[in-house]
């Protein structure tokens, strides 16, 4: 078991543990913080997979921008004095069960996918994740979606203004 494998397992454990904490923390602020942990762990995975660009973007965009936004909104709303809705333990139970069922289904398909068993991933190698390669392909093959995503941002912008503006 080399160091990368150990790192992989550690990161995986951290990811899952962080995710569970996100879901199970009562206080939303903790959830956000745990989510940031998860994002870092995932970025670690990306680095392990030699996808540096994605790893960096993940930290900047997700952990940096998005999570700050979440945190900001959470802080803005003073959620402590909310009336406590009655907790329905059954609902939670059923939620976990059905999530588990979905997991079983997904895992069983991946297990049955014997073609996947033949394939493996070489960690820490390869150059496709490098910004140069990605940039090349993004502005050639993926130019159309790249342009089009501007419309997405425009509409999100307009929308955020329309919805968020106080009138």
């Amino acid at each position, binding site marked *: 078991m080399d160091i990368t*494998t150990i790192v*992989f397992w550690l990161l*995986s454990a951290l*990811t*899952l543990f962080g*995710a*569970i904490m*996100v*879901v199970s923390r009562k206080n939303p602020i903790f959830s956000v913080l745990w989510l940031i942990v*998860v*994002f870092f762990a*995932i970025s670690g*995975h*990306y680095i392990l997979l030699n*996808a540096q660009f*994605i790893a960096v*973007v*993940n930290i900047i*965009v*997700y952990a940096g*921008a*998005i999570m700050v*936004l*979440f945190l900001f*909104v959470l802080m*803005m*709303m003073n*959620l402590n004095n*909310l009336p406590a*809705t009655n907790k329905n333990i059954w609902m939670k139970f*059923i939620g*976990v069960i*059905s*999530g588990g069922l*979905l*997991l079983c289904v*997904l895992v069983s398909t*991946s297990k049955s*996918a014997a073609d*996947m*068993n033949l*394939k*493996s*991933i*070489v*960690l820490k190698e*390869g150059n*496709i*994740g490098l910004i140069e*390669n*990605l940039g090349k*392909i993004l502005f050639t093959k993926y130019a159309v*979606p790249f342009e089009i*995503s501007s419309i*997405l941002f425009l509409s*999100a912008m307009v*929308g955020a203004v329309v*919805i*968020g503006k*106080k009138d």
Partner: protein
Amino acid sequence: MPVSYYIILAATLFCIGVVGVLTRRNAIIIFMCVELMLNAVNLLLVAFSKMQNIAHPPGSVVINGSDAQIFVFFIMVVAAAEVSVGLAIIVMMYRNVHSIDVNFLNRLKN
């Protein structure tokens, strides 16, 4: 590293996200769980990208796994846009009803 590890890891992460959506009632947390799901997908895509990059023996159609990483990039784009809109909506909701508990959202039913 077998690719199925990543598949299972991503699936588990995804399902944790699903469970979060199902069990939590705070709209923001639900939204965060959705982000968790998206990240699971991202992780999976990056893993697949690495897998596709080397999986093909010489002579076959070369599939460059960078497609998937570009896709991840776009997912992040969309996620950012969604977050801006989503949080705006949640804030608007909060302004009107002073709550972000989804179980209060039951004016529309039947």
